[in-house]
């Protein structure tokens, strides 16, 4: 037991047969399996563990649970570095590395502690009154300094090598908290046959019983809890989730939780599951979350060696460590008598200071005879540098007169217990002040929620067990699981819990000391007084003004004390001082855990078309569109972007090219009313279109703006197939669902997204027909038999194909659709057949060049602010039928003068270039709201024109053909002169695609 100076010779629920090594601030220590980092440090006599946020005051281990505000450390190294971890929640394992934080150069000698000396200038809210003079100093000097000083730990300098996942659980009864009440509830519900999930954030069951030395059912309390837990674990209808912190409750009894799967194992191979986030959906919720102790507030109540009373005995009983040998227990309630008893039994020299009168006390029966108790007294101040060395005592009636000073190395404090009601608060349940326990409890809860044990403000063990049983039975029967009500086990008789609140001592105590209400954020009584003086006395204002309750423990120790103090300062009852809302997360959760599997490369799906392999093999450079990777261009040896695109365009225009268009959204419609449905969705009509025909269509939004465009194909009387833009595929589907379900449920039509079902490719160029004629079986592709806008089914090899004669490029072109698993084969067959005509693949940029040359619009023009008329498609808007967007598209703002209309642009000097996103101005160099008259939506180098061309949206553009404008990109300091033209640059009469 080398060095474990504070380890008791026996006792505790740790595994003394094994030793684990860990390090803290570079020094190595030993502990045992079953220890936490906190108990391991205490065992080794390490009491100074951290520094506070603002004043850098030395701090030590204050609690034994997740509410720890002071003992925050950084664990792990490299990508596993984890800041701000409560030492109380870290299970010791071999090789654990922990470091203190927020100190420089070292924990025991922290230069930042000068902040403490400047305290008179840094009260609550000091920022708002200061740092304003001179003005420029704020952003040059003060703010950078404030930012540098802020924060606690430091995040990892590398990505995290560990793995996270999400799981989902559905149950009848969720019990949160495996303390006495929770265990009983889970057992009763499980025995009745309910599907139960029992979650607890600790590694061992029993809740506070894990740290008690009392008897339940004639057994040691921890062993009893383990026994129940073993029984439950063996049942098929129970899921036990230890090491699982339920962090929040959401609408509809949905809960979020984090399970620490791998942290305690100390694995360091990458790819191991570290934590799992649970989403738990339950019908009944048993809140058995227990209670959290609050400290007493007195002068310098924050030194290392000052600990919550309940936690101190927890360390003795669960971990077999003695946090101090000369102990002062300062309290206002009877629970602390158990602490005095257990510490005395473990060999400590204990003095108990109770602020109450003797006649109000029930706990003295517990104490061994030799324990000294002083009634009606309180600790007013403490001494010590890096560890507490003495407590100054005074009579409660005369707190400014120090009666005596007791040397000590541990002060256990208790100001009472607060029911842990956090999980219910978020969804609107309001806590009510319960003067019997001097704490907030939930007065009323909704159906399906059961509060039991400490969480319900029941601090008597026997009653906790009974409430647990009753809630378990009630929850099960609410899920139609009938149960006989079992009897709760008997416990050792413990004294009744009584308390007399003690919020603060009159502020006559030494000015040099500070009485901390919120430890981590260094909020003192003086800060609360100042807040109240300045009008921030409402609990919600005080919180925001002083930052009380905003530390990593979210006020678990401080909130109720602050409300008590404020109510005294304001002279209002506590109930009127207000509370703040406890929000999730009850215990903070790592972002990686909350994200689960969907991170890094899996953040969003990466979609590949059926021909992806071919594109890769042929050197495609990809670009992303709607999560799809699409070939952007296919550079050949020695080609840059421009050269490759130019070659691809010229080849398609002079011979034949092929492009993968599988990413288009595809929707199939069936039913007698399909045609009518489409008529109401599109501005043009399809119900009269003949079977076997295809046509371009445009949809508007309700507000009359263009929503989407694509082709509509009629495959049979009652069967249509439509394509929509890649980026809008799901949006259009949603729109159609909405229209059908809400506007026109009477239409007999069904439709379904088939985007992934079909691979698609467009074959374009004067040789397209020759190439396809060699491979397509079953259609006569001649112009007479298969003119523009024809559709027919056929085969290529063994594959079914659907051929549409439609052209985006302006060339003689066909679109081939084939089931996705035939896509690659069909693509390769066409490539092979086209080899003799010099077929080559082209990418999305070449497609953009060709559609721009033809003046066809696409995404950049359909930006949600353009009307069909703006885009030159006004003629398509049917006057003979009603359709979505028709009426609102006739509003004056959408039809009058000043609309931006689609035009073409060409540079005055042929060699000039301009870029997408440049703006059109008539007076270069001016600035102001009316300077921009439009912008370039698309710009490309046109091989056909041999200069840059562009499409643009220009105010009243159609009437400005021939005008000269400046194309300006001030971001790039560029400006060239250009002429406004019509939007079509190549083959305006469409002869090529009809040929």
């Amino acid at each position: 037991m080398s060095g474990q100076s504070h380890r008791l010779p026996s006792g505790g629920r740790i595994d003394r047969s094994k030793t684990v090594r860990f390090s803290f601030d570079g020094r190595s220590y030993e502990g045992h399996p079953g220890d936490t980092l906190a108990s391991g440090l205490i065992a080794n006599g390490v009491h100074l563990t951290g520094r506070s946020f603002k004043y850098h005051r030395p701090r030590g281990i204050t609690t034994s649970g997740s509410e720890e505000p002071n003992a925050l450390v950084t664990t792990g190294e490299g990508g596993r570095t984890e800041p701000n971890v409560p030492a109380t929640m870290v299970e010791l394992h071999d090789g654990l590395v922990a470091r203190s934080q927020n100190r420089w150069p070292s924990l025991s000698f922290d230069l930042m502690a000068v902040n403490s000396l400047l305290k008179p200038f840094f009260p609550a809210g000091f920022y708002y009154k200061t740092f304003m003079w001179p003005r420029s100093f704020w952003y040059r000097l003060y703010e950078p300094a404030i930012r540098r000083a802020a924060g606690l730990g430091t995040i990892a300098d590398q990505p995290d090598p560990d793995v996270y996942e999400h799981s989902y659980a559905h149950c009848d009864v969720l019990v949160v908290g495996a303390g006495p009440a929770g265990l009983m509830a889970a057992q009763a519900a499980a025995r009745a046959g309910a599907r139960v999930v029992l979650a607890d954030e600790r590694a061992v069951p029993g809740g506070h019983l894990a740290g008690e030395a009392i008897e339940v059912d004639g057994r040691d309390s921890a062993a009893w809890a383990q026994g129940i837990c073993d029984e439950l674990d063996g049942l098929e209808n129970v899921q036990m989730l230890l090491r699982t912190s339920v962090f929040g409750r959401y609408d509809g009894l949905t809960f979020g939780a984090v399970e620490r799967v791998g942290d305690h194992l100390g694995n360091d191979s990458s790819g191991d599951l570290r934590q799992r986030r649970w989403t738990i959906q339950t019908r009944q919720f048993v809140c058995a979350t227990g209670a959290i102790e609050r400290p007493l507030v007195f002068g310098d109540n924050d030194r290392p060696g000052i600990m919550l009373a309940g936690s101190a005995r927890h360390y003795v009983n669960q971990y077999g460590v003695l946090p101090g040998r000369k102990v002062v227990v300062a309290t206002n309630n009877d629970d602390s008598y158990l602490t005095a008893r257990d510490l005395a039994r473990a060999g400590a020299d204990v003095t108990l200071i109770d602020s109450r009168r003797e006649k109000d006390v029930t706990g003295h029966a517990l104490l061994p005879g030799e324990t000294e108790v002083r009634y009606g007294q309180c600790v007013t101040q403490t001494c010590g540098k890096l560890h507490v060395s003495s407590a100054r005592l005074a009579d409660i009636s005369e707190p400014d007169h120090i009666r005596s000073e007791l040397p000590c190395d541990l002060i256990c404090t208790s100001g009472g217990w607060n029911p842990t009601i956090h999980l219910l608060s978020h969804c609107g349940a309001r806590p009510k002040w319960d003067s019997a326990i001097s704490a907030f409890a939930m007065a009323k809860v909704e159906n399906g929620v059961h509060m039991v044990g400490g969480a319900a403000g029941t601090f008597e063990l026997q009653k906790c067990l009974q409430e647990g049983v009753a809630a378990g039975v009630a929850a099960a029967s609410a899920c139609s699981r009938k149960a006989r009500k079992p009897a709760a086990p008997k416990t050792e008789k413990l004294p009744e819990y009584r308390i007399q609140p003690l919020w603060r001592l009159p502020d006559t105590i030494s000015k040099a000391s500070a009485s901390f209400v919120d430890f981590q954020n260094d909020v003192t009584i003086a800060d609360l007084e100042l807040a109240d003086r300045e009008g921030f006395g409402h609990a919600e204002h005080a919180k925001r003004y002083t930052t009380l309750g905003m530390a990593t423990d979210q006020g678990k120790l401080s909130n109720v004390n602050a409300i008590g103090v404020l109510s005294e300062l304001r002279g209002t009852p506590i109930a009127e001082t207000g509370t703040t809302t406890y929000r999730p997360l009850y215990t903070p959760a790592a972002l990686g855990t909350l994200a689960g599997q969907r991170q890094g490369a899996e953040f969003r799906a990466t979609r590949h078309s059926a021909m992806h392999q071919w594109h890769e093999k042929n050197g495609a450079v990809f670009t992303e569109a709607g999560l799809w990777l699409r070939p952007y261009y296919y550079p050949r040896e020695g080609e840059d972007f421009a050269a490759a695109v130019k070659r691809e365009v010229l080849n398609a225009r002079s011979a034949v090219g092929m492009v993968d268009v599988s990413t288009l959204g595809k929707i199939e419609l069936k039913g007698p009313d399909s045609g009518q449905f489409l008529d109401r969705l599109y501005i043009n009509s399809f119900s009269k279109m003949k079977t076997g025909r295809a046509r371009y269509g445009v949809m508007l939004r309700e507000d009359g703006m263009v929503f989407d465009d694509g082709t509509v194909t009629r495959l049979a009387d009652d069967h249509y197939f439509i394509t929509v833009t890649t980026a809008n595929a799901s949006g259009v589907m949603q729109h159609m669902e909405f229209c059908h379900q809400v506007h026109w449920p009477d239409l007999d039509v069904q439709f379904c997204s088939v985007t992934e079902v079909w691979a698609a490719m467009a074959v374009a160029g004067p040789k397209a027909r020759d190439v396809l004629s060699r491979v397509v079986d079953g259609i006569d592709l001649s112009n007479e038999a298969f003119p523009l806008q024809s559709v027919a089914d056929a085969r290529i090899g063994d594959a079914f194909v659907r051929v549409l004669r439609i052209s985006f490029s302006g060339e003689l072109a066909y679109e081939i659709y084939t089931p996705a698993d035939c896509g690659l084969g069909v693509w390769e067959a066409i490539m092979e057949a086209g080899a003799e005509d010099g077929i080559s693949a082209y990418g999305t940029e070449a497609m953009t060049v060709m559609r721009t040359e033809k003046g066809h619009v696409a995404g950049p023009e359909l930006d949600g602010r353009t009307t069909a008329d703006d885009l030159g498609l006004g003629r398509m808007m049917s006057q003979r039928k009603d359709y979505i967007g028709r009426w609102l598209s006739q509003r004056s703002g959408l039809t009058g003068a000043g609309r931006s209309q689609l035009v073409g642009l060409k540079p005055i000097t042929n060699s000039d270039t301009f870029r997408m996103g440049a703006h059109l101005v008539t007076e270069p160099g001016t600035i102001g709201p009316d300077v921009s008259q439009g912008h370039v939506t698309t710009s490309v180098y046109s091989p056909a024109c041999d200069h840059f061309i562009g499409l643009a949206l220009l105010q009243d553009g159609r009437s400005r053909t021939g005008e000269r404008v400046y194309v300006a990109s001030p971001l790039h300091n560029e400006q060239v002169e250009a002429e406004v033209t019509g939007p079509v640059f190549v083959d305006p009469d469409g002869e090529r695609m009809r040929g």
Partner: protein
Amino acid sequence: MRYSLSAIIRNAATGHKHWPKVWKNPEPKQSYDVIIVGGGGHGLATAYYLARNHGITNVAVLEKGYLGNGNIGRNTTIVRSNYLCSENSQFYEHSLKLWESLSADLNYNVMLSQRGALNIFHTPAQRDAAIRRGNAFSLNGIDSVLVTREEVKKLAPLVDCSPSARFPVLGGLLQPRGGSVRHDAVAWGFARAADRRGVDIIQNCEVTGFQIEKGRVRGVETSRGPISASKVGIVVAGRSTLVAQMAGLRLPIESHVLQCFVTEPVKPVLDTVVMFAAAHFSIVQSDKGGLVFNGDLDGYNSYAQRGNMPVMTGVAESAVSFMPRLSRLRLLRHWGGINDMTPDGSPFITRTPVKGLFFNGGWCYGGFKGTPASGWTFAHLIANDEPHPFASGYTLSRFETGRVINENGAGPQPGRH
């Protein structure tokens, strides 16, 4: 008491015992010249500018809860003025200029921090859209800079700029003057400054109805009794539809939950505000060290100021995918605010069909940055019964004509912006 260096030193020496209340808590009078309904940022700013710019000081701000309980104290605190539509860019640039002198003007440090606001893009199409916006800003005289991937790396080393990222960073558009402001300080600073000019700030006073006679407003009913005034301004953000309903108005607004997320405080890792084109996600590190995130709307209409898990999951996915070093940093807290969303994504600062009743709302995601200009222009409208030129487009009638101010082309469903 004016805040000054000497006041600080004097008070430090006397244990800070003599600081006065930051604002008084008067009992409501029976009548005022102007009543402002809603003690959020915009309401308080309106009251302040009514007094400061127009000399109208017989003003009450009626707040149903504690001052600043609404969105002013719940938002992500990002300020910037880079808006595409001219109407918006004028307005928000005016706002940013007011921010720049606000601490001095209010004698209250609102902790404006202009560390830059960076919009990251990932694909050529997103880059082109960013160039369009950036050029629009420049032509409107708003600072904006196109930055390369290398520069993004320097500005925000936390961001994964490697080509293997799921959405590789291509570059970004930076507004150097963008940044953040301490949100609560804005409410308190405006309240204090308005109070010092004679405005009554009345908390725990809920407006429950309007007194309207012959199409003219005469006053309001409140939980503390009736109060009369010939001019009333409604500035209640997420509750706009409910309050306007009491005056018989049906607004083109939907209320949606937007959540805000904050991590545990850590040493500085991110200087600029960063937004990503690949997901609805923004991040800023506060002066206290917490990283503050925003994601999507929760996806359903609600007046309950709390959010649910799916958006939290999405935000966490974005955070660790764009910034993998954040994986083990813990999320501390999340909460929701109610965003008043409009069909074109732009707000209202407008008269209503009821004479003397004015409405300010529909701020969508962007109302915090607009706070000073909103107060400035709304005060102008109330004082003169004429819209301020910077806010003249923010009318209710714009949907009748279709002259909407559609900032990002979404719509007309309010939740899509």
